[in-house]
């Protein structure tokens, strides 16, 4: 299959750009895969409900040679180890990494690879499904830099690490390829916040994150996608857990023409645990997709998924939640729940729980709901003097609280709450004027 014309300029620019090994070799392999895979067709089951039109129609340019000037104050967490990438390139002025305990690495891939980091050569690209997934291949073919985090044995990092990726600050259709590698050593602990902030235009971001947890490690991973309403975002995330480690994820998408996350979490050691919560908001013609696979490969592991969505306008959402319990994974406890709130008649949700269970001593539950605001609750609030509009907004916000309240960082929580509230108000005003 030939490379879609949309990407040829970006691929050529990436191939010509200098990079240290192993980045260069990865890029080469990524390009080969991408050329072979091309864009997926809707005949492929995994892409049946995802409309790639916003991408197929664009012609993506490489990021500008001189990165844009951006304002990152909105999502910046006070007192964090901050790395900011603007249009794929580390911005050393905006970045601010505090003093770190011995052996902890919070850096950019180019720097770490140039210094001959064995960590980077061992783990970068080890999990990403470059041979199967077109946006993982695309990212690997064009990424210029990215973030790398390493926590050695027993280190518990108090302050969160914030990785901010800012792109598309001008109105051109640019291609961004954020890349994240987190390796958490035995009994280490950290909170990693990934913020994807879009400027404007019909840009495409195709981030890839690889997270490796050694025995008894704990990683809390918060991902906020705040792309421009016309931008697309196709994220691939791979997580590998060793025995008794714990991965906690909070993934919030505030909108974008198409925001899709393909996440695969493999519980690859006994008694490992993954707790995944997600929230997506869509309006107008937007689409939000969550494709999640949780693979129980070893006995005694626990996993839970709670994904909630609020859909307005004629927007769409897909939730594909797959739980695989392999033959040896006895005493598995896996739960999954997808709940959607529709604010309009035209919005649609495809919710597809899939269970593939090969072990016999397991506990698996799943459920999905698609519903409206509870009119009885609206009346209850009104009967206490609260206006209909305020009652509706209060109940809609309350629906998001179950996910937002699980975010352990106060500044992220409050920023999300005000941002969600602002968007819901926008949706109502739109409705009133139509």
């Amino acid at each position: 299959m030939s490379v879609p014309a949309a990407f040829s300029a970006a691929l050529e620019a990436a191939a010509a750009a200098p990079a240290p090994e192993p980045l260069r070799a990865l890029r080469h392999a990524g390009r080969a895969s991408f050329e072979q895979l091309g864009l997926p067709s809707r005949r492929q089951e995994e892409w049946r409900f995802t409309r790639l039109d916003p991408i197929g129609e664009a012609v993506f340019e490489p990021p500008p040679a001189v990165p844009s000037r951006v304002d990152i104050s909105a999502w910046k967490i006070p007192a964090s180890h901050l790395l900011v990438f603007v249009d794929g390139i580390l911005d050393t002025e905006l970045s601010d990494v505090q003093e770190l305990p011995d052996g902890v690495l919070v850096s950019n891939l180019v720097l770490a690879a140039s210094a001959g980091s064995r960590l980077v050569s061992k783990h970068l690209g080890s999990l990403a499904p470059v041979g199967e997934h077109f946006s993982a291949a695309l990212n690997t073919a064009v990424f210029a830099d990215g973030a790398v985090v390493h926590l050695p044995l027993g280190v518990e990092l108090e302050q969160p690490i914030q990785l901010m990726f800012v792109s598309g600050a001008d109105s051109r259709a640019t291609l961004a390829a954020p890349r994240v590698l987190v390796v958490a050593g035995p009994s280490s602990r950290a909170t990693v916040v990934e913020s994807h902030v879009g400027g404007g235009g019909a840009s495409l971001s195709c981030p890839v994150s690889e997270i490796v947890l050694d025995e008894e490690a704990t990683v809390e991973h918060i991902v906020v996608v705040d792309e421009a309403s016309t931008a697309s975002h196709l994220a691939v995330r791979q997580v590998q857990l060793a025995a008794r480690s714990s991965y906690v994820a909070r993934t919030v998408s505030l909108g974008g023409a198409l925001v899709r996350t393909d996440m695969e979490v493999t519980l690859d050691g006994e008694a490992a645990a993954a707790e995944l919560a997600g929230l997506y908001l869509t309006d107008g013609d937007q689409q939000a997709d969550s494709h999640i696979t949780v693979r129980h490969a070893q006995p005694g592991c626990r996993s839970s998924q709670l994904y909630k969505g609020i859909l307005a306008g004629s927007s769409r959402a897909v939730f594909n939640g797959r739980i695989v319990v392999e033959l040896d994974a006895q005493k598995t406890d896996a739960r999954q729940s997808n709940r959607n709130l529709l604010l309009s008649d035209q919005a649609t949700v495809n919710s597809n729980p899939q269970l593939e269970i090969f072990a016999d001593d397991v506990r698996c539950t799943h459920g999905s709901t698609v519903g409206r605001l509870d009119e009885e609750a609206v009346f209850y609030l009104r009967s206490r003097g609260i206006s209909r509009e305020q009652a509706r907004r209060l109940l809609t916000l309350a629906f998001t609280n179950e996910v937002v309240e699980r975010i352990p960082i106060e500044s992220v929580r409050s920023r999300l709450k005000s941002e969600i509230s602002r968007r819901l108000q926008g949706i109502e005003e739109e409705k009133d004027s139509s």
Partner: protein
Amino acid sequence: MSLLEITDLHVTVENTEILKGIDLTVNPGEVHAIMGPNGSGKSTLASVLAGREEYEVTGGEVRYLGHDLLELAAETRAREGLFLAFQYPVEIPGVANSYFLRTALNAIRSYRGEEEIDAVDFLSMLRDKGALVKLDENLLKRPVNEGFSGGEKKRNEIFQMAVLEPRLAILDETDSGLDIDALKIVADGVNSLRAPDRSFLVITHYQRLLNYIIPDFVHVLMGGRIVRSGGRELALQLEDHGYEWLEDEPARAAEAQ
């Protein structure tokens, strides 16, 4: 001027006439009990007064403080001092009880042109009013009614009433599902709120509640009509004889019209 004046009220739900001509006048400070068997239209009357929209008023009128009550949206009625204690209080996940009450109180204050309540004043107010119905302070932080026991939900209704200080409180079968201790707590709460400028419409199936909340007037609602009105002794007669005692009354009342 009467607080509430209902004249020949007819109400239909899904093409079935439930209320067939209700007349009732409530003056400031009075406690009226409305008693009746299941299906007599008691809860329909409460719902129509509170502004539930699935009920169609096909005749008659309701004046509240001289205004046409039926013209007002549910929230406006609440802001004008009307309060309904729900028979089945609604659970609202994700909204803390205290946040909900503060939002409601501020909506009412803003309607009256008053400033928002100060956070410290509000907290001490919650503590005082919560004590009236022995409400566990932890319930303030919990989502509205979520996981509350039956008794806690009913106490929470009276607690909200205490905070919002209505002019007319309608208690829709607040006694249903309560054991005797919970019933006493709820009744004590209501009694402590009795005031010359506050009236109550106490809707109940059983006279039991009226041992604790002593009404000024008792009305018996059967078949969509008030078939008998009297003083407190009427409730006691009903206790002795049951509603069968008045079974022929709806027909007689219809004839009389």
